[in-house]
């Protein structure tokens, strides 16, 4: 029995399962008010998914507005927030689009498919802008590295990202891998994609032109992922919760690859008026958003949708989140050519409706009208909440518990300092990530200039000119826990620094804001603080937020994850040949630390290793970050620099270790005057970088730093011949004058053994 609009009118009092679908009483009442009758079951399904937290941003909207309100004026932004992904001008007629999204809850339920379809979804966001995807990155966070559930989730997530991304032919150029108990039961699986296009190829999601046809193409619609959005993304995992496995979507990367090629071909052939990917909320989302952005009306014949399972009800078809589907608006004159190109790529396509000027989204099922709604009310005018928030009761006590020498004993002897360095570089958060990244293809497409473990991922966009882009994502969530306003700024600062250190000029920002329940006023305070901090810092650094994603309800019971505002920064480099890698090259090159080092350990890796979290995070210094960025970009452009590395997790000691491992060449270091060796080696003060300068460029480089007011301290020199004198003939050696000596092989062993030992060979 189909619940049609007619039936809703004649039987207005029928009981409806709005609560089970995640709607609140007042939300259900406002749907009735919008429609002036009870919704049909299909309409109820549509509103419930589109008004879910995941699709409607109902709790975050009031705070996210700041990204637009405080946006710095820039000519780089071609398409701003609100579209599938923002578009940035990188010069020479080229534009890039990039975005990061969460797939946290599905990846906890079913790690392989959850992570795989996370990649698929973000890639479709990028192609629906008209861009060819260039690369992906994955910021990942798990519970404690040795926790049994981490062993369940992590290998599946890594295999899922690899299994999908590798088959899609997109290089995976980096990301993050962080372990913290706060993510036990709530792993964070974020996925980023970047794509490029010529300015003329930018496409938007709108259904324009009355009489134009609406085409659904790609995979057939099946029963997977039904209710995935509202059920999975909006509820927390309680121990006695219902089984949710069937809600996770199943991915087919081969179909996605064909979909990419077919989509780019129809776009470039000029056959498409508007285009939208099908992600969360499937056909409900695509039809209502296209209609809402366009002429305002659409008529859909839902029974034309090609199905994998003929028994699906219309409500299920509307809610299905089957992967690898797209929706395009095509003029009647071009439909044959469109269908022909789909056929070339063996992609099924069917016209499911047409654009109208009625101002209504009308959906028919075998002749009966089952949906008749104003599309804007579904897609854009959902509920908006001003959730209450307040500073957590425990915040002051947390900030007061600083890791002073009295509170947390510090290593002092040379032997203890040496052991501290080994402990840090072998800790799960700082250990080599190659167990993970070697399962991803970083070479495909042949344009990867830098990839993990480098400072940033870098991709060549134009083979002729060498124009390229760099991307980094970062977040130290412990900093955000100590101070969410500063923590979000520190995440931005680190990402911005990573881009600059690689030689690219930072241009735009995306974010993936992972938080606990917005219904908890203390979590909401963290969210409000973090978004304000991020918006303020973007304004000060002059780079706009182009889009992003919010993931709430990352909590188990009353315990929320650390607030985790993952920030991605995109930069541009005129000629990738000028990029700055991490590895020093030749004997005699001079090693400088730029910036000032203070006693700042709160929230850092050393304190984390001691099981301590308290105090105030390192001081944010955005003017100094900006200056550091300008200096690093100038040094790269003018050929003054061989190698560079940002100083962040684990401080200078870890930074130079990573550089030595990358180079496989030794170096001699000394501790600068007037600073405690432990503080110099392991503090996580911001706005700092290691710069490796050829002797011939030293004067030019130091004069530039002096003229700009950037502190530059020489504290090392590259030397491949230190082995003999230090009792390690024929080995590459790192010597710290008067402190300790370690061979590069010893460092490598400590750094590389950890993840294989935890997760298998």
């Amino acid at each position: 029995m189909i619940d049609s609009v007619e039936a809703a009118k004649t039987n207005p009092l029928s009981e409806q399962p709005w609560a089970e679908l995640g709607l609140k009483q007042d939300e259900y009442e406002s749907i009735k008010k919008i429609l002036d009758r009870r919704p049909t079951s299909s309409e109820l399904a549509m509103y419930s998914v589109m008004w879910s937290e995941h699709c409607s941003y109902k709790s975050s909207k009031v705070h996210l507005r700041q990204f637009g309100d405080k946006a710095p004026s820039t000519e780089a932004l071609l398409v701003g927030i609100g579209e599938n992904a923002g578009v940035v001008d990188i010069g020479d007629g080229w534009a890039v689009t990039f975005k990061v999204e969460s797939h946290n809850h599905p990846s906890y339920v079913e790690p392989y498919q959850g992570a795989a379809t996370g990649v698929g979804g973000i890639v479709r966001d990028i192609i629906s802008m008209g861009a060819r995807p260039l690369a992906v990155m994955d910021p990942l966070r798990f519970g404690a590295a040795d926790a049994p559930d981490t062993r369940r989730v992590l290998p599946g997530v890594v295999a899922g990202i690899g299994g999908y991304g590798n088959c899609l032919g997109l290089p995976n150029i980096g990301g993050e891998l962080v372990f913290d108990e706060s993510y036990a039961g709530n792993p964070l699986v974020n996925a980023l994609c970047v794509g490029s296009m010529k300015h003329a190829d930018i496409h938007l999601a709108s259904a324009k032109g009355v009489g134009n046809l609406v085409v659904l193409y790609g995979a057939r619609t099946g029963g997977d992922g039904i209710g995935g959005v509202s059920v999975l993304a909006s509820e927390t995992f309680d121990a006695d919760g219902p089984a949710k496995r069937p809600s996770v979507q199943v991915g087919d990367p081969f179909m996605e690859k064909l979909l990419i090629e077919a989509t780019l071909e129809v776009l470039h052939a000029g056959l498409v008026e508007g285009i939208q990917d099908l992600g969360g909320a499937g056909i409900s989302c695509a039809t209502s958003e296209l209609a809402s952005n366009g002429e305002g009306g659409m008529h859909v014949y839902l029974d034309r949708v090609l199905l994998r399972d003929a028994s699906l009800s219309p409500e299920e078809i509307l809610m299905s989140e089957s992967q690898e589907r797209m929706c395009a608006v095509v003029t009647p004159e071009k439909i044959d050519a469109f269908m022909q190109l789909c056929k070339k790529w063996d992609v099924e396509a069917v016209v499911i409706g047409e654009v109208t000027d009625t101002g209504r989204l009308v959906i028919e099922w075998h002749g009966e009208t089952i949906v008749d709604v104003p599309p804007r009310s579904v897609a854009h005018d959902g509920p908006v909440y001003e959730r209450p928030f307040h500073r957590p009761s425990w915040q002051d006590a947390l900030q007061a518990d600083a890791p002073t020498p009295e509170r947390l004993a510090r290593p002092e002897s040379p032997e203890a300092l040496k052991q501290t360095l080994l402990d840090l570089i072998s800790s799960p958060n700082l250990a080599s990530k190659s167990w993970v990244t070697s399962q991803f293809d970083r070479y495909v497409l042949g344009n990867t200039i830098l990839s993990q473990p480098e400072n940033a991922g870098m991709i060549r966009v134009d083979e002729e000119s060498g124009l390229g882009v760099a991307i980094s994502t970062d977040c130290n969530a412990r900093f955000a826990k100590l101070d969410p306003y500063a923590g979000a700024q520190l995440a931005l600062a680190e990402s911005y620094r990573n881009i600059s250190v690689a030689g690219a000029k930072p241009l735009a920002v995306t974010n993936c804001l992972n938080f606990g329940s917005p219904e908890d006023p203390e979590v909401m305070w963290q969210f409000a603080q973090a978004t304000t901090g991020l918006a303020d810092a973007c304004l000060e650094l002059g780079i706009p937020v182009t889009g992003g994603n919010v993931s709430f309800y990352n909590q188990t019971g009353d315990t929320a994850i650390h607030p985790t505002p993952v920030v991605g920064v995109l930069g541009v480099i005129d000629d990738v040949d000028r990029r700055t890698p991490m590895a020093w090259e030749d004997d005699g090159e001079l090693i400088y630390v730029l910036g000032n080092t203070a006693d700042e350990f709160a929230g850092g890796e050393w304190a984390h290793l001691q099981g301590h979290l308290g105090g105030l995070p390192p001081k944010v210094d955005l003017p100094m970050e900006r200056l550091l960025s300008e200096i690093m970009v100038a040094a790269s452009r003018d050929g003054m620099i061989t190698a560079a590395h940002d100083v962040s997790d684990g401080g200078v000691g870890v930074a130079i270790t990573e550089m030595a491992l990358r180079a496989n060449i030794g170096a001699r270091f000394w501790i600068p005057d007037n600073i405690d060796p432990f503080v110099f080696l392991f503090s996580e003060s911001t706005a700092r970088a290691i710069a490796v300068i050829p002797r011939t460029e030293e004067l030019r480089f130091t004069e530039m730093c002096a003229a700009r007011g950037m502190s530059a301290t020489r504290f090392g020199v590259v030397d491949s011949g230190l082995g003999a004198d230090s009792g390690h003939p024929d080995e590459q050696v790192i010597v710290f004058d008067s402190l300790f000596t370690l061979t590069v092989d010893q460092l490598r062993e400590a750094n590389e053994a950890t993840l294989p030992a935890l997760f298998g060979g």
Partner: protein
Amino acid sequence: MSARIGVVTFPGSLDDADAARAIRIAGATPVALWHGDADLHGVDAVVLPGGFSYGDYLRCGAIAKFAPVMSLIIEKAQSGLPVLGICNGFQILCESHLLPGALTRNDHQHFICQDQKLRIESTETLWTSDFALGQEIVIPLKNGEGGYVASEATLDELFAENRVIATYQGGNPNGSYRDIAGISNKAGNVVGLMPHPEHAVEALTGPTTDGIPFFASVVKSLVGAS
């Protein structure tokens, strides 16, 4: 006129653009060949690139061998057309019986992407003549099913006939029998290679430029023959 080398695009081919770039860098003209096209457009040689042709459904390379373009390639390869199959292309050549043996799931069960050291074991093929015998090179390896297997008799025969063209050095990355990374047919015109020379043709993007001689070898032989 420079040599024209075809690169086949199957649905799911991924490294076709990379192969075309490598052909250009080696001084030849890449020609795009479509899987459904029963026409080789007069090319002088063919590269079957890496990827997941037809989604690797059923078995890697098993469906690709039935593609219209493949029946022509199989026929011409038997009469001397130079053909290089890289990764998925190697799998297709084995499935097509242009080369013996098969590629199986890596012994450690994971996809692996790493810079791989190889030793060139034969320079008597059309695709390896530009190397020095015994030369050690480093090019990317990236596969989930790269373990080369064949019967003991076949393996003995491959070595006896000098048809093992490259072996893995510094550890076997995928469980390939006798460390085999690539082989050729008896005539030396058909070569299958699991690692990816097309990803090692530019210093900026590859670990080395050690991949170029594979393409330069065939270009030289084609120019010499014309």
